[in-house]
């Protein structure tokens, strides 16, 4: 019962995040959806990644959104007509999800026993060390990209002021 509530609330938050027109409100709904996803992950037996998702998804990303929205400015009022007609979008999305459900849900396995008794840390650092290396490379690349983007912006802003 509890799980049903979590899933329902998560889907509601996600829907509100996507639907709203004001950006700050959308970011807050997204934070809610992230938190509920983290809770669901915890219920599925993955506590470490649930905590990480909570702090990163609900915390870091939300702060970043708020920051970016403050700098970039809110969306101007007046609902713009979406380019893809809304009925077409809904139909296609429902088809995709429906087909996915049709294929996946009947074949859902029952939960098997835990066959990996090792701790998460051991699995991460030993078996998946290539992944960790890739994450480090991605992080460095991301930092360099953002620095490059924002430095140029500041130099341009300074030039405009002069």
């Amino acid at each position, binding site marked *: 019962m509890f799980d049903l509530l979590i899933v329902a609330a*998560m889907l509601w938050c996600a829907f509100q995040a996507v639907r709203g027109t004001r950006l700050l409100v959308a970011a807050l709904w997204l934070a809610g959806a992230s938190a509920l996803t983290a809770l669901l992950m915890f219920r599925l037996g993955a506590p470490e990644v649930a905590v990480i998702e909570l702090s990163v998804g609900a915390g870091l990303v939300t702060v970043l959104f708020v920051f970016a929205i403050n700098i970039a*400015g809110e969306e101007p009022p007046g609902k713009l007509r*979406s380019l893809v007609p809304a009925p077409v979008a809904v139909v296609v999305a429902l088809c995709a999800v429906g087909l996915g459900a049709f294929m996946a849900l009947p074949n*859902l396995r029952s939960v098997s026993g835990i066959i990996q008794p090792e701790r998460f840390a*051991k699995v*991460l650092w030993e078996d998946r060390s290539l992944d960790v290396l890739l994450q480090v490379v991605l992080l460095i690349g991301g930092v360099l990209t953002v620095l490059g983007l924002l430095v140029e912006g500041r130099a341009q802003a300074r030039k405009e002021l002069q």
Partner: protein
Amino acid sequence: MWLSLPFLSAVGVLGLLGIGLLGLLVTRNLIKVVVGLQVLVKGALLALVLAGRLSGQVQTGQAITLTVIVADTIVSVVALALAVQVRRQFGTLDLRALSTLRR
């Protein structure tokens, strides 16, 4: 069976994927695009954790999920930085106005 955790989680995954895709289809604002993307990736993360749980290899599922979280966060950071710069350069975040690939 209908209220068991795996089934509900699978429904949650599919729901998130659908909502995320719907968001990407109808929005015209660059920052809303990032929101839609985030919802989509949450669905994917949940699917990975679910797969780990169902096959019994929870830790491997968690490790892969961690990698995806890192990658997705970096994507959203860079996308938001880009959105800020686009706003400064072009003055608008509207996708239609920004598209320059038309003849």
